[in-house]
């Protein structure tokens, strides 16, 4: 190596590091080698413990939540059922995510979902309201159209505009926390399908090609992070389920910023091929994310 080249590259490197330090991105710069995963998969622990490990592997919540930001955590709270029925996201996981957000410096953390069953009963009986409030999150209603504002989806093929919850619209960070479940119409409900809880009129989706609408809405805003709860998994009679007979204990969790990748991995975990789910095929065609998880950089953790 010539001296001039060395100087040049040393100068560039130091400038880069310096810039990084000035911008406060010191951590991620130093550890970028270790945390640059497309997907993190954890198994074997309690939901909150698995999340601690997984988010650490991704470089910590600070990588996603900056100081003073407004965060929305969007679990699935669709049904008036108890946590052991696994129709809703695990409350322990939701609580722990909120804690991580505040520790990373979030100004406010909101928890919201447009429920299917009566919303107050869903919030209460899912255990999510209590878990979120214990972690100091603001639990926000979504039961009335007045909370929603018109948004347009330029890349949507069927769903060109819809109404999204204002608290999500005005958030800096949007964390999508679905539960992995069997689903009558969508085959599986995971991260992409969970976004259906952001909008007011869901009948439009059902009426006009559900799978295309799921993919269309995923083009609207990419969640900052997707966290798939597969601790308890509803294998049959989804999405509401009839009893705990529908549920198996999988003790797993998946994290990714790529919504298609996380859904594809979750589908495999469930025992299906990503190709079995039409909205994943559409999403791949529309280049929303990657379905070819075999080519991704995956961190696998066993607790």
């Amino acid at each position, binding site marked *: 190596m010539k001296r001039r080249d060395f100087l040049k590259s040393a100068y560039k490197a130091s400038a880069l590091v310096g810039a990084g330090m000035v911008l406060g991105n010191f951590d991620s710069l130093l550890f970028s080698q270790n945390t640059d995963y497309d997907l993190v998969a954890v198994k074997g622990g309690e939901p909150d413990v698995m999340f601690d490990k997984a988010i650490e592997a991704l470089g910590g919540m600070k990588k996603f939540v900056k100081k003073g930001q407004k965060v929305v955590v969007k679990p699935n709270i669709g049904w*008036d059922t108890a946590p052991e029925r696994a129709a809703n996201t695990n409350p322990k996981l939701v609580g722990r995510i909120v804690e991580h957000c505040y520790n990373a410096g979030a100004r406010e953390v909101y928890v919201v979902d447009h429920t299917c069953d*009566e919303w107050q009963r869903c919030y209460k009986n899912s255990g999510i309201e209590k878990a979120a409030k214990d972690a100091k999150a603001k639990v926000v209603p979504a*039961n009335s159209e007045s909370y929603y504002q018109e948004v347009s989806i330029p890349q949507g093929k069927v769903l060109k505009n819809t109404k999204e919850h204002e608290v999500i619209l005005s958030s800096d960070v949007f964390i999508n926390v679905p539960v992995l479940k069997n689903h009558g119409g969508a085959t599986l409900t995971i991260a992409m399908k969970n976004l259906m809880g952001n909008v007011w009129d869901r009948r439009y989706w059902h009426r006009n090609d559900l799978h295309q609408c799921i993919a269309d809405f995923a083009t609207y805003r990419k969640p900052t992070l997707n966290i798939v709860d597969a601790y308890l998994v509803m294998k049959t*009679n*989804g999405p509401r389920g009839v009893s705990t*007979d529908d549920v198996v*204990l999988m*003790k797993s969790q998946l994290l990714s910023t790529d919504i298609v990748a996380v859904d594809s991995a979750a589908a495999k975990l469930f025992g299906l091929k990503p190709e079995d789910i*039409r909205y994943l095929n559409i999403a791949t065609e529309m280049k929303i994310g990657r379905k070819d998880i075999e080519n991704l950089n995956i961190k696998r953790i066993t607790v």
Partner: protein
Amino acid sequence: MKLKYLKKIRVAVSLFFFIIITSLLINPQKNIPQDIIIFFTSLQLVPSILKILFYIGLSSLGLIFVLLISVFFGRVYCSSICPLGTFQDIIIYIRRKINKRKKFLYQKPNYIFHYTFTFSLFILALLGFVSILNIFEPYSIYSRFVVNIIEPGFILINNFTSSVLESMSIYYLFNIPIRNTDIFVVLISFSFLFLIFYMSYFHGRLFCNSFCPAGAILGIISRISIFKIVIDENNCTECGACEKVCKANCIESETKNINYAACIACFNCIKVCPTDGVVYNRPKYINIQVNLSEPSRRNFLKRAILPAIGVFLIENNQGEKNQLEKSNYFRVKKQPISPPGSQSITHFSNLCTACHLCVSACPTQVLYPTFFEYGISGLFQPSMNYTASYCNYDCTICTHICPTGAILPQSVESKKLIQIGRAEFYKDDCVVVAKEKECAACSEHCPTKAVYMIPYKGKLKIPELNNDLCVGCGACEHACPTTPRKAIYIIPNQIHQKSKKPEIKKQEKIEIPEEFPF
């Protein structure tokens, strides 16, 4: 004897009940514990008489309590527990403030009209025309007014406040959707209360002593009550002050005669008497003859108990109507669906006084007041509106709070097995057939999987019914996205049926992956 404090106690107690009952009926955030609702509504006389026919429980104590206090103290129910009574007193109070000169005068009691009227109300009720009783039942008149007019107003204020708070990112209050209602229900609720307003403004408690069925029943008891308002001849100066404040028009000061059937024990006369000439005591301690000539006990039997037995008989005779045939008819003309616990449309329609307490307490707003859906005999009675919402599978609140026993109490487990209607699927309108796209909204929402998906064309799946499991909650109908007609409907069961319990095996299944499959 100083008894001036009695009026103050009466005013305090009546305002207490009035405010509590009004709040129970508004119940905007649906968070008032059902036991409190049961406690206060069980004191309502006519609903409790109806309820005790079919259900004897803690709520029956309310009726016993009301009858007992009436035996002891006369019609204190009318002056302190009845919300419509207090409503009238407020009107009378305001009137007195506006026009100080207007006085009440003794009026000859019109027993014949009042008793005949009450008697016919109960006779009509047992013939199936309960709606006429409903129109004159005081608690229901008041509750209909609150639920259909005050509550929506309250919701508007709530929603305005919540949207102001919301713009400041405060989500303490939340928006409440205003329930669908029939304009006639609103208009009639309002006009009846207006009539009461008119009567009380110009004639005091005219309604209570001419039309009110509870007033008639309690009037009979009050004739023989232990404590009574009595004019003490030793102290009375015949000034007539008591007569002028008597809103029940029951004191004739000239003859020192008090009409005990009409006296509502408001104690205004005691308060106003300058010489302690009006007292409240056991009449035998005062040297006064009380006129007890009316054959009161026999009348009471005739007028209150006979109709009650009648309702029983009718109930048992009409209980054998067959379930209506399935047809497209239901999609065109709406048939009422009575809530779980009401046993049958007939039971419900015969006992419901249309107080709309269940309507206001229903957390999903699936119950709504109808105008004419139950026919002329069931005006204003609530039905399930699956366009607005659907019945929550795990909720039993309406069954517990119903003050008349039209909806009988159910445990969560027993309620889950009541089939109030059955799903009917109209394939041609379904998204899966019409558009050849996945949907399954109906099956998604079904809590028992009475609607499940079976293979159709290619990978498509289509809904299939297993109506043995159907409870008729309407989740499928509500969720169905097709317009203008839904592709799945609930057809009411005229007599509620028992649905099959979904099989539960209760075995723990563990599938923690050894290695991730990717």
